[in-house]
């Protein structure tokens, strides 16, 4: 594989860009693999990469219904953070932050990780206290966090509404300076390219139609491109988890919901942080291209549509203007929807299942993108070693039976309330 570098770029430019290698190949599926990962999204690609890199398992196929990176890794708002309150979430995410920090070099692919910092705004003392609880927990877990007062917030984001005319005044905020954004598509492509180079087969346009299970053991998967045997299978399909679970006669603590996001037309740099509104659900950052990337509430009903309705976006943008009134004059350029596997406590599941050799990675709700490297790393470990790693031990499927829930928001099972 070619190594990307400035020299390589110049060399290729001088040869008229005719000698670039394939970023990944387009192989015909083999009859059998050691591991089949279902789902060519960020998590699936990362899992395959870490199986090869950390566990030397390279007889691996990723099978993807459409094109790789076409799920939520290609349709999120690119926020990367580890500002969680519960230890299981915080330590897992912070492990991921380390992987993010070296990802471009590790993958030899610029994923443009940009630690610009995230600020969660607070609009009352009570909310400041809730953030303090989270921030202190982060600090005690070794994660950076700063509690900002109103003046400090104003200094960093003067375009937020500090006027008299505001419905929910800004009291301050919790900031994680090391949080940031990355170029989402590049993450998928970078993992794909490296996994491919280590021998992983990336098989696109290959839909799973069924599973081969006997005596409580997974044997293989039936696909639109034929049957594929596998010693182990990892399920990594975000919003489509329930569809595959049904083929395995499993019912999971997951509902599939729709989340919309949108971008404005590009403008010159005006906002260099990620900011969330505390009196509702709205988050915003400005992309390198200059677009304001914005998101908020779920549409609030079960959906596989990847298309939402305007009232939800109206609601989200209302909060946007409430937070930063200048947004009013920008224009909404593009909207899209992604389907979320909303788990019943808002935290993910990375675990073995009752079927031997079948592993589950799901329930990422709206937080899947930032988890890509840590999810891939721990899932690869779980598959390779047939046991969960300490980092994902809290993400067990059994926690809904035992009551060891990880409900960061305290909303319980009504996942559509965001």
């Amino acid at each position, binding site marked *: 594989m070619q190594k*990307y570098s400035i020299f390589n770029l110049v060399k290729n*430019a001088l040869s008229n860009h005719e000698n*670039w290698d394939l970023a990944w190949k387009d192989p015909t599926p083999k009859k059998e693999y050691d591991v089949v990962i279902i789902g060519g999204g960020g998590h699936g690609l990362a899992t395959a990469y870490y199986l090869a890199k950390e566990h030397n398992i390279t007889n691996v196929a990723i099978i993807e219904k459409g094109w790789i990176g076409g799920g939520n890794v290609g349709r999120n708002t690119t926020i990367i953070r580890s500002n969680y309150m519960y230890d299981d979430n915080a330590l897992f995410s912070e492990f991921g932050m380390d992987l993010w920090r070296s990802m471009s070099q590790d993958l030899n692919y610029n994923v443009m*990780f940009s630690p610009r910092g995230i600020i969660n705004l607070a609009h009352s003392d009570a909310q400041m206290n809730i953030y303090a609880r989270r921030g202190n927990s982060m*600090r005690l877990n070794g994660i950076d966090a700063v509690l900002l007062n109103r003046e400090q917030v104003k200094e960093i984001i003067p375009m937020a*509404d500090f006027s008299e005319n505001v419905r929910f005044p800004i009291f301050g905020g919790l900031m994680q300076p090391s949080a940031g954004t990355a170029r989402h598509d590049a993450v998928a492509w970078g993992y794909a390219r490296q996994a491919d180079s280590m021998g992983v087969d990336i098989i696109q346009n290959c839909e799973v139609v069924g599973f081969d299970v006997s005596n409580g053991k997974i044997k293989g998967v039936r696909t639109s491109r034929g049957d594929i045997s596998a010693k182990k299978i990892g399920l990594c399909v975000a919003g489509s988890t329930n569809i595959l679970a049904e083929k395995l006669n499993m019912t999971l603590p997951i509902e599939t919901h729709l989340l919309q996001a949108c971008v404005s037309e590009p403008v010159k*740099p005006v906002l260099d942080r990620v900011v969330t509104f505390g009196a509702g659900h709205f988050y915003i950052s400005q992309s*390198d291209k200059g677009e304001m990337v914005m998101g908020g509430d779920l549409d609030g009903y079960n959906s596989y549509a990847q298309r939402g309705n305007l009232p939800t976006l109206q609601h989200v943008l209302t909060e946007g203007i409430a937070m930063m009134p200048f947004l009013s004059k920008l224009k*909404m350029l593009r909207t899209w929807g992604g389907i979320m596997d909303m788990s019943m406590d808002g935290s993910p599941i990375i675990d073995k299942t009752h079927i031997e050799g079948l592993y589950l990675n799901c329930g990422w709700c709206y937080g899947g993108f930032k988890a890509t490297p840590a999810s891939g790393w721990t899932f690869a470990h779980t598959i390779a070693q047939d046991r969960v790693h300490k980092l994902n031990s809290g993400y067990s499927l059994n926690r809904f039976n035992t009551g060891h829930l990880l409900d960061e928001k305290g909303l319980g099972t009504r996942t559509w309330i965001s």
Partner: protein
Amino acid sequence: MTQSFRLENVGLINRNKKISFKFNGKKYYGYEGDTLASALIANGVHLIGRSFKYHRPRGFFGAGVDEPYAIVQLYRNGETEPNIKATEQELFDGLVATSVNCWPSVKFDIGAINNFLKIFLPAGFYYKTFMWPKSFWYKVYEPFIRKAAGLGVASIKHDKERYEHKYEYCDLLIAGSGPSGLASAYAAAKNGARVILAEEKSRFGGTLLTSDVNIGNKSGKEWAEGIIAELTEMPNVTIKNRSQVFGYYDHNMLVMSERISDHLPKTKKFHPKQRLWYIRAKEVLISAGSIERPIVFGNNDTPGVMLSSAAKEYLKVYGVLVGKKPLIFTNNDSGYETAIEFKKNGIDPIILDTRENPQSEIVDDAKELGINIKFSYVVVAAQGYKKVKSADIAKISVNKEELGEIENIKCDCICVSGFWTPTIHLASQSGNKTKFNENIDAFVPGKSKQNETTLGAANGVYTLDETLKSSFETAHELSKKITNNDNKISFPNVIEKKSTTHDKFWCVPLPKGKNYKRFLDFQNDVAVSDIEIALKEGYRSIEHVKRYTTLGMATDQGKTSNLNGLQLVSKIENKVVPAVGHTTFRPPYSPVSIGAIVGREVGKHSKPTRKSPMHNWHEQNNAVFVDAGVWLRPRYYKIGDENLFEASKREAKNVRTNVGVCDVTTLGKIDIKGPDAGELLNRVYTNAWLKLPVGKARYGVMLREDGIVMDDGTTTRISENHYHMTTTTAQAANVLSHLEYYLQLVWPELNVNVVSTTEQWAGAAIAGPKSRDLLQKLFPSCDVSKEGLPFMGYMEGDLFGVKARIFRISFSGELAYEVNVESDNGNFMWEKIIEVGQAFKIQPYGTEALSTLRIEMGHVAGSELDGRTIPYDNSLEGLVSKKKDFIGKRSLTKEAFTAEDRQKVVGVVPLDKKTSIPEGSHLVKDSNAPLPNPKLGFISASCWSVEYDNPFSLAILKDGKNMIGKKLFVMSPLKNKVIPVEIVSSHYVDPKGERVRS
């Protein structure tokens, strides 16, 4: 400056009204009815901006919504807006605009250096470099790239404009007022349907304004005007210009943005700048027309290269010549129409037709007019940097692969026509699976998913006769279905020139040895070579191509580039175009201002505000308010220079020593009536309710089914079948829905009615050792003695002529009562309590003091009942019945919920009895332990105990039951605090409840 490119007596502009405007600091004139684009071209200005990546010079490409280039910064009435398309912005007096994305000026742009480096900046180059050294991406490269990107400049000033909404319903919504739109609107309106006709431009008529056709013995334009005049008079028709239907959502809901004031120097007072229409239509007719496609050739982004239809529109609508030596480059008959218009106005065009020998009426007309036509010819490349100066042209072989010898001819513009692409955006948004039509090389709508029909050019129908016929018929049939009328109008005679087939040619090959950039996406600088690289590297799905190269992701959303991109991919991949497929069309069709989407819910009104009947009194008595959900509640009443801490301490202290009064109107109140009301309570609450006597209140806790505490409060039995439930302010709405859920869906056999009476009653809590004395004065005829009104008792009373409900309940650890009167009398009650209370040194107290009082007595509230705790955690296990079943009971048996070391609420006191403990801190065993330092619990609520005059906090602590008396550390790294503390009982004041029962 003279308008040297303006024709006399041609066009639809108002020559009696001259308008002055400024562009890049220079003053120009135009006419009413001009767009900024037409006025600039009339003045000979063609250089308007710079491209996104290479900063190449940019002019005008189209004449409307499809414009990829001509983007300006607009200044209007003291405000500025970025990214305005000059082709859409109507001219108004005093308009000021500047170029975007160039520095220091549009003519000399430093960023253009990228243009010379462009061979090093192919598609995806960002991904391949800028990776070393490690931290340089964020610190060095990215800031540089960010500055270079973006287009216009966003003002961070608050937007003062009004944007409004309108919800409308109709039988037929018709999007687009070209021939098919007008015909359908007319047919449906005449048949009695309620019709909305939307046109995105300022003028109705679409292509009828520019094409040389005859309908019913009138010119197309006259016919359109006649129809519009008639429609305007009809009461069942709403016609809207400057109104773009931009989104097609579920259940036939469409959204339209109406630009009411954007064409005016300023918005009329009390009127909106824009209005967003949510339109629910029984049937939708999409008559959005088509957009001309470019032919791809070398340097095809040079200013002066533009769509042939745009050139015609500038000429016929605005009386503006886009050039005086035009070259028309076409693969179909449309280019001839433009050429003929030039010729008619005294300009000699040259036509290059890729076709070998086309035979049609239009071609014959052009020949007859003596226009110079070169068949089998192509433009190889435009020459000129800031404006086209000449064109390299060549003969092309029949197989379209070999170029002949290159000739150079002088020209000042190149008008390109690569045939027409139907505007299928709305149809596709509705869920319609589009299909590829080989005859026109483009996608057209397929089977309708919702009640939508696409007509005319948007459906790939390019003859007027067929368009009008199908539109009349479809609109008649659809309206008949809705209105049951059968009033058919007669179909007019149509005369139009017959055209012949187009040449399926869209990209000029590179001549040997030349490496011209051939652009597909003009704003994002995506060239043929970029797509080639993407495919070579394996980015083969059309979505990968789009994302890797950014094809079609600019502010024009690929209206002129997407199809050519598809053609290229299909050619290289050797697939048919439909097998490549197109990327998804999503709303909006064209960018919409966020202000319009949001409407009037801005500033103070971004959310409603709830106020109690005593709000005005609080305001007048220096209350400082706090948001409680959307309620405003007094947090404290400020006296002099007091701060929050001092005031709340004073207020709380006064409750402990004298008496205080607090507005508790915001607590949720639910009236529960019916023969089975008691049974409902017994199932909803964790404790037993069947034996509560009339006239008594009881405290209760309710759970979610997952065992987590949902809410707490008291419920009073007013009469045999009548209960009065109170909830917390925060959960009031949820609790009501919760009860309705069980009553309607789970236990429909119960005969119970629940209704919110939160607003019916104003509530005042009277608390403190002197509260009974005060109550006695307020209700002299009631026996409010310890025996007459015992703890948890209830009675009705007369408060100086006003009927009142009196509850003896307490959340403050003091003898306390709650008085309710009907809301109109709330203020009267409050003033009476204050007035009579003077004798007892009464003071009003706010939520902060309320909080202090409840923390001191260990009464759990929102910060403990945070959606994550079970009754045990809150020391409420005594209220959990072991005998009966209730909502959520089954979950309480879970392993984690019954663990020996389960968390529990405790009290926390600093060892020094001085240091305040910040809320949100955590409890640890060893403050010096390495990170991650295991946390044992967290501080949920803190106060300054007025009883003991030292800090006191509540905490949820692991194994709290066994921790009383232990010493731990409170840590707040955020505030740099480490505080040694002792764990005590959460019931710090009046642990045995003697005062409340006194």
